[in-house]
């Protein structure tokens, strides 16, 4: 067990987060940065681990990560049940140990009328008897999968020796947490059953129980691991793999091209390409450069690859500029 915070009493909850004056913060500043949250013991515990690491470089629990989980208190069948949501644990975090921390309230002094007296004794000595510590304390853990009732699957039950009052207790629950995580059930409930008739209804207070999980994050040495857990906004919303084009650019950088079709096609010629040379008799294979460099080149019948290659060289250098026309066209030309 351990008492409350071991350093000077925590500063009153600072409203808002104060900016640090120097890089090495004193616990007070860090606690003030926690604001209201600094009052509960889990925050105090985490601050203490942080200070210990900063002062001595002591790896908390031998790993590089400590996650704390606050309890949410609910009454189930008139009994207080504490719920823990462990879903924020990362898959890359290998659990080393886990501990459950709870506080046993100091005895409440009975009120005057509850003074216990020995019945019918001569000198009834009305001594103030305080109720002793509970005979035993049972600690019961259950894991809840999404669709079970509040009961869930029993994960562990411990009978604890009656804890001294007014102290914090810590119990190792590593096997329970590891088993729950293995089964993918990261919603846990814990019940502290002291066997007292009316244990009274606990109120949420700084003394709420909490869980600490010490882990080794195997991904922490990956480049940019700090962004995985600390960068909360994403400059590029999910699913948009490429950086969005600047708003003033058109949505799609490519220019849309389409031929303006002016009414039904009379012929199969492309509009706007009327300077094409007269259609050759044997519209056969021709090279692009032949077509565009001199549209009036004689089209040669297709030859074998080898001599075509040779021929291409020839035609490219010494081809004549004369075209072959049909007889009728030649007659017309002669007459003209």
């Amino acid at each position: 067990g351990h008492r409350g915070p071991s350093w000077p009493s925590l500063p009153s909850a600072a409203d808002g987060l104060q900016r640090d004056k120097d890089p090495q913060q004193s616990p007070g500043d860090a606690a003030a940065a926690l604001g209201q949250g600094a009052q509960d013991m889990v925050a105090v515990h985490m601050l203490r681990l942080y200070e210990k690491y900063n002062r001595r470089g002591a790896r908390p629990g031998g790993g590089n990560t400590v996650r704390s989980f606050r309890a949410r208190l609910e009454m189930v069948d008139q009994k207080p049940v504490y719920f823990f949501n462990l879903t924020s644990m990362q898959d890359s975090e290998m659990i080393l140990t886990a501990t459950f921390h709870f506080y046993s309230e100091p005895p409440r002094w009975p009120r005057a009328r509850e003074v216990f007296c020995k019945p019918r004794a001569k000198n009834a000595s009305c001594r103030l008897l305080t109720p002793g510590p509970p005979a035993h304390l049972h600690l019961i853990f259950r894991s809840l999968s999404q669709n079970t009732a509040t009961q869930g699957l029993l994960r562990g039950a411990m009978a604890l020796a009656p804890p001294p009052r007014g102290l914090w207790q810590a119990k190792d629950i590593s096997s329970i947490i590891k088993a729950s995580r293995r089964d993918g059930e990261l919603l846990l409930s814990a019940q502290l059953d002291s066997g007292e008739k009316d244990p009274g209804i606990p109120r949420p207070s700084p003394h709420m129980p909490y869980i600490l999980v010490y882990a080794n994050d195997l991904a922490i040495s990956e480049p940019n691991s700090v962004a995985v857990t600390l960068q909360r906004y994403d400059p590029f919303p999910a699913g948009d793999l490429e950086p969005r084009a600047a708003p003033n650019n058109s949505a799609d950088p490519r220019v849309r091209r389409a031929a303006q079709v002016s009414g039904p096609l009379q012929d199969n010629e492309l509009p706007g390409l009327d300077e094409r040379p007269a259609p050759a008799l044997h519209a056969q294979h021709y090279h692009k450069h032949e077509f565009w460099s001199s549209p009036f080149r004689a089209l040669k019948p297709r030859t074998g690859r080898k001599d075509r290659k040779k021929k291409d060289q020839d035609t490219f250098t010494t081809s004549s500029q004369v075209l072959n026309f049909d007889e009728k066209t030649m007659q017309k030309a002669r007459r003209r």
Partner: protein
Amino acid sequence: QWDEPRVCSRRYLKVDFADIGWNEWIISPKSFDAYYCAGACEFPMPKIVRPSNHATIQSIVRAVGIVPGIPEPCCVPDKMNSLGVLFLDENRNVVLKVYPNMSVETCACR
């Protein structure tokens, strides 16, 4: 920064998490001394820039001009330190993580 040495060396940089918008969930530290590396790795490189063998060869090849377009080696962090960060996760639970390579101890030419 003006009187900084030309040669590759560690320069002072204090990072304030409020400047990068992370201060809402980072409890502590609010800022830390990160430093950075800058400066020349030109031939001949002094020992202080602790060049790797490859960087030495590269700077000679560049100086001799055998192969055009070879840049001089880069001035980068050599030894780095971890930083413990206390922050709130999405469920506002307190988390402590010790991130490696968060601040520069020494720089070198690579």
